C-alpha cells in the first residue's frame, strides 16, 4: 500500500486515469485503456468506495491502480488495502507516522478479500 500526500497526488497528471463518484456502478463503464481509477471517500464513514474497489479488483479483474481519495485516515488503510486499493492519498494534516503499524498489526483475517481471496478456513484446512 503506497501512501502519498495531496501534493504528490496532484503533481503527476495521468491522461489515462478516471475519477468515479461513489454511487457509480463500475460494471457499467468501459475501462479499456484506463490505467488508474480514483475512488472517493467524501466522508470517512461513507463506505461505498470499498464495494466499488472490490468489484473493480476482484469481479472485473482491473489490473491498474486504485487510488483512495478524499477523507482518508490511517485507520482505514487496512480495509482499503484488502478491498483492492494500492494507493491512498492521506487527508491533509494527517500524520502518516502511525500508518505502517496499522497495516502490520493483524497476522491474518477470517474472510477472504479482494487481494487474498481465500478465507482463513481454506488456509487452515
Amino acid at each position, binding site marked *: 500500500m503506497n501512501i502519498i500526500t495531496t501534493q504528490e497526488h496532484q503533481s503527476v497528471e495521468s491522461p489515462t486515469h478516471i475519477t468515479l463518484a461513489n*454511487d457509480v*456502478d463500475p460494471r457499467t463503464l468501459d475501462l479499456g485503456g484506463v490505467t488508474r481509477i480514483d475512488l472517493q471517500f467524501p466522508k*470517512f*464513514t*461513507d*463506505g*461505498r468506495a*470499498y*464495494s*466499488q474497489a*472490490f468489484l473493480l479488483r*476482484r*469481479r472485473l479483474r482491473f489490473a491498474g491502480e486504485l487510488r483512495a481519495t478524499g477523507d482518508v*485516515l490511517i*485507520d482505514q488503510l*487496512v*480495509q*482499503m488495502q*484488502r*478491498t483492492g486499493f494500492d494507493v491512498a492519498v492521506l487527508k491533509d494534516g494527517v*500524520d502518516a507516522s*502511525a500508518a505502517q*503499524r*496499522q497495516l502490520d*498489526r*493483524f*497476522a*491474518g*483475517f*477470517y*474472510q*477472504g*478479500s*479482494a487481494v487474498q*481471496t*481465500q*478465507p*482463513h*478456513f*481454506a488456509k*487452515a*484446512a
Partner: protein
Amino acid sequence: MYQYTEFDKQFVRARAAQHRDQLERFEAGQLSADEFKPLRLQNGWYVQRYAPMLRVAVPYGEISAPQLQVLAQIARDYDTPDPALLAHAQATQDQIAGPAPKLTTNYGHFTTRQNVQFNWIPLSQSADVMDLLASVNLHGIQTTTDELAGVAVDEVVDPRPYAELIRQWSTLHPEFAFLPRKFKIAITGAAEDRAAIGWHDVGLQMVKNAAGEVGFKVLVGGGMGRTPTVGTVIREFLPWNQIMNFLEAVIRVYNRWGRRDNIYKARIKILVKAEGQRYFDEVEAEYQDILVKDGGLHTIPQAEFERVAACFAAPALNLPASTSEWVAQAEADVAIEAAKTPAFARWLAQNVKPHQNPALRAVTLSFKRPGQAPGDATADQLDAAAALVAKFSAGEGRVTHSQNLVLPWVRLDQLHALWLQAKALGLAQPNIGLLTDMIACPGGDYCALANARSLPLAAAITERYQDLDELNDLGHIDFHISGCINSCGHHHSGHIGILGVDKDGKEWYQVTLGGSDGKDLSGPTGPGKVVGPSFSSVEVPDVIEAVLDTYKALRQPVQGRDEHFIETLRRVGHDPFKAAANAARHTADAPTA
C-alpha cells in the same frame, strides 16, 4: 462452547492493541473526537450522558464461568466514576421531576442484545479493560441467537456453529466496516422463534427441506426504531454452506444502495421497503456472480463446519448410565420437595424449562427484582453467578435478550440445591415471563440518546406488582420499556410497550399494546399500537393497572386455562383497553415533583 484457536486468540489481542493505539492517538490530539468515534464504537465504546459505556459482546449469549468472573472484576475495579463526576451526575438527575433513584456504580447490565454493558468506566482505562477482556476471549462486538440453542426441545438444528462461523466471517470484514447504519443478524434453529428474527436487519431461521437437508430461511429488512418493520423473506431455502456467500450479496447491495443522506432512512429496512423486488433481484444476481464469477470461495467446507460444531457438543455431566430409571427417581424427588415447598414449586413452574436431555433442565436466574434495575448485576452478583454456572451448569451460562441468565445444563437432582443457592443470592424470583420480568433500557439515567428515564418506571411497576399470586394470575405478559425511539428496550415488540418521549423538556410516555417478538405465545411478529396521547410518569403505573384490570374483566377460559393477556387483546380488540388507559389519566394533568 466455541474453543478459541491460537489464531482466534491472537486476533482478539490484536483488536485490543488496535484500540489502545487509537486511544493513545486520540489522547495525544492526533485523532479528533469525530474520527475516533466510529473507531471506538467498532470496539464497543460509546459515550453516554455522564460517562462512556462499554458494550461487551457475548457472542450468541454463550458465556463461561471465567468470563463472568472477568466481568465481575471489571465491574469491581473499573466501573467506578470519579467522585466529582458521580456527584455532578446525581445532582443533575435530582433536578428532573418525579422520583429519582440513586445512580449506581460497579455493576454490569445484561441487555436485549445479549451482551453486557458497563456505564462508568473512564475512557482512559478502556484499553486496559480491552486487554482484560481479551484474556478470556471477549471483545466489544455483537451477535444474538436463541438462548436455548442446543438444549431446546423444539430445536430443528443447533444454530450455534453457524452463528460462530458468521461471527468470524463478519469480524473486521474490510468491505462492510462503514455501512450506512448499524446491522444486526439473528439466528434461530427452533420451531419457536425466541430470537426475534423478524425484528433484525437479517433474520435466519434454520430449516430442513423435504430431502432432510439443512438450510436457512432468510429474512431481510426488519428493525425497530422510528419505523418499526418486520423482515421480509428473501429466500425460503438457502443451503447451509452458502450462508456467507449469500450474506455478502445482501450486504454488498445494501452498502452500494443504502441511503447516506438521512440517518433515519439509512437502515436496510428502508431500502427493502423502497426498492422491494428490485433489491431482491439485485441480491440474487449478485449472489450468482459471487458463485460463478468469484468462485464462491466462502462456501463453508464440511471439515470446517465439523471443526466448529465439535466445540458445541454437550458437556460431560457424569450422568448415571441407566437414565430412564434415574430420571424417574429424580423427578419423583423433585416433586416431593415441590409439594413441601410452594416457593420451590412456583420457581420450577416459572423459571425451569425442559431440555433435549430428559435428565437435565434449563434454568433461568432472574435479574428482575425490587431495588435493582432490570438486567443489572453487581460485581458480587456476577461473581456469584459465575460460581453457580461453574457448579450447576457445566461452566456455561447464556445471557438472554430478556436480560436474564440461563443455566442450560442443570441436572434434575441438583435443581433443589441450585434453587436454595439462587434464592440466597436473590436470583430466584419466580417471575420469568411474567409482568415483572420486564425489559428496560438504561434510559435517561445513563443514556445520552434517551428522551426520558426508564428505570423509575420499571421500579414503580415492580413495586406495585410484588404479590406473586397476583403476578401469576396476570400470567404471561411481555412488558417492554424504551427511553427513546432507538428502541433498545424493544417497546415495539411488547404486549405492553412504553416509549419515553420528550415534550417541552419534560418526560412523557407513549403506551402501545399488542406488539409481538414472534414467539408462539405472542403471535406473528409486529409492532404494538399506540393507545393515545402520551402520559406523564406518575400516570403510567395507573394506566398499566387499568389495562390489566380490563384484561382480568374480559378474559375467558381457553383449553382449561385463562386466556393470556395478548389473546384477550386480540380477541376483543384494542378499544376497551384504550378506553381504560385514557380514563386513567389524572385530571390535574401536571406531573408532580
